[in-house]
């Protein structure tokens, strides 16, 4: 693969802090210098950055192995400065299982979109979860197939117009969206099931905390974590990046409530309260 590596327009010297200041935000080490191949305003990039920050902060870069799916993040092996595997469509959780079982000391994540994780890869997703496979799954839910150009996803909303639901998703013939977190939370296997969003700085901070927790659970052997990230797809929703985040808040968050659906590390009451509150 030859995803173009960015030639930063800023020199290293320019990015150094002056004597009277400190750097409070910069690219995490776990990201390569490659440009994300995502469209302008696509929140995939935010999530990739949060994952890289979590890996940096937990000091696990040297033993983390990522698995990327088929979808808009198909070339994300170029974005993380880690050993990476590219998986067949839907199979990232199975590939991650294989890596983890072969080398349990590795920290393994599967990064998957909604079509990958909740449609073609539903079986692999559910069974990795119910096995309590000690991996971290980051699930991007933007209610549409991005890479193929905007077709209906398993998480497309009722009435949502897509290329393959041109009159809106008719639940009579096309069924209902899958709420993955709610479904997986019924299983005994998972340690952490949480839905977050990256539509605002506040939610982004919460998403970061959730992702970091998921990785730390894996480090501690607590078990399977899935963090569903409600994301935007400005291009295929036909909206500007800013309007897309508005649409996400108005349409997706009511259908996909944020919260912790299962947390083996929390007191039972706490997990329940968080889910009902958010």
């Amino acid at each position, binding site marked *: *693969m*030859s995803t173009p590596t960015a030639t930063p327009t800023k020199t290293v010297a320019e990015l150094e802090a002056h004597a009277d200041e400190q750097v409070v935000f910069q690219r995490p080490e776990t990201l390569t210098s490659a440009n994300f191949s995502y469209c302008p305003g696509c929140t995939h990039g935010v999530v990739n950055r949060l994952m890289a920050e979590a890996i940096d902060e937990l000091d696990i*870069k*040297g*033993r*983390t*192995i990522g*698995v990327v799916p088929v979808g808009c993040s*198909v*070339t994300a*092996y170029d974005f993380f*400065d*880690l*050993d*990476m*595997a*590219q*998986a*067949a469509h839907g*199979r990232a959780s*199975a*590939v*991650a*299982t*294989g*890596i*983890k*079982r*072969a*080398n349990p000391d*590795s920290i393994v994540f599967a990064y998957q979109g909604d079509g990958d994780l909740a449609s073609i890869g539903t*079986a*692999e997703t*559910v*069974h990795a979860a119910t096995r309590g496979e000690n991996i971290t799954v980051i699930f991007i839910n933007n209610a549409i197939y991005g890479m193929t150009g905007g077709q209906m996803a398993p998480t497309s909303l009722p009435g949502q117009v897509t290329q393959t639901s041109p009159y809106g998703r008719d639940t009579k013939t096309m069924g209902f969206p899958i709420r993955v977190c709610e479904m997986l939370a019924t299983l005994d296997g998972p340690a952490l099931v949480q839905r977050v969003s990256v539509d605002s700085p506040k939610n982004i901070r919460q998403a970061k905390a959730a992702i970091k927790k998921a990785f730390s659970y894996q480090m501690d052997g607590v078990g399977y974590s899935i963090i569903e990230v409600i994301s935007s797809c400005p291009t295929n929703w036909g909206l500007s990046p800013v309007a897309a985040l508005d649409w996400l808040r108005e349409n997706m968050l009511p259908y996909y409530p944020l919260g912790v659906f299962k947390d083996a590390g929390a007191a039972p009451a706490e997990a329940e309260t968080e889910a009902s509150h958010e």
Partner: protein
Amino acid sequence: MPNEKVLMKGNEVLAEAALRSGCTCFFGYPITPQTELAAYMAKRMPKEGGAYLQAESEVAAINMVYGAAAAGARVMTSSSSPGISLKTEGISYLVGADLPAVIINVMRGGPGLGGIQPSQADYWQATRALGHGDGHLIVLAPATVQEMADMVATAFALGDTYRTPVMVLADGMLGQMMEPVTLPEPLDLASIEDKPWALTGTGAPGRTTRNIANSLDLVAGNLERRNDERFERYEQIKAKEQRAETYLIDDAEYVVVAFGACARIARSGVERARAVGIKAGLIRPITLWPFPTTTIEAALPGARAFLSVEMNKGQMVDDVRLAVNGRAPVEFYGRTGGVIPTPAEVATALADLQQTVTAAGTKEA
């Protein structure tokens, strides 16, 4: 326990041989007639400190194989015909990412659900169409339980050497058969060569770059280069790794070509034919891919005709014809659906072939 001779079932021997070849990961799914293999692994693998997992599907199992292979483990999966069809997606990705793994197919009758009796109907699939895209697997075909015991180590070694998945193509007869077998000595794991390409983490000792397991390349020229490089390896495999066994071939005029369990029957058929004065011989391909064309070539000068005997409707006969390339008649005899050809049938087919060839020769003269 050197030279121990034990009575074991073919399927179990495949599993035990894998454990003795440094296989540390096994991912499978139940299907008749190979299930004993998975059950044996389930019992033994945890005691060896390896990973055994019954996957949710054949599709998941082969993708777990992909992950473990990428991580550098010696990994195996096994199935039977319909299950192998499900695995073909993952096998294509293994080929595309140049990952070694051993895949066992204990063939049964098809197409579709077919039956659970022995068959060789997956020859085309194994040698031609195991997944989309340009690519091959090395395909090894055992004929005895002893050969199953010895072949698994070869399969792992070939896979590592050429960075390719390797299939052991057995059938329900061999899988279920019990024979006395001398198990191979357990391999010294330190003798397995390092895999510097494996996903062991960028912080692994001695690492300066990061490793990526990947079959995707969106730049046409780059993808072509990768394919060219892989096919250069295939040429090396064809040159160095053809394997075949011959029987009574030196003066053979009528050459039977048969593989696997079918070759054992064909051997008896050849003996019967010899008893009635037909100069018959046998070539038993051990590597189905690469097909042992040099063995066919060596038999050609004395051969008046070839007879491919298979438990299918005529699949390997294509490769015999390609190897013979019009220089001698090539005929086929086979049974399907789990019906096993008998030595008498093979001898009759040889007699018929002799008659046809002789009649044609007389006509020409």
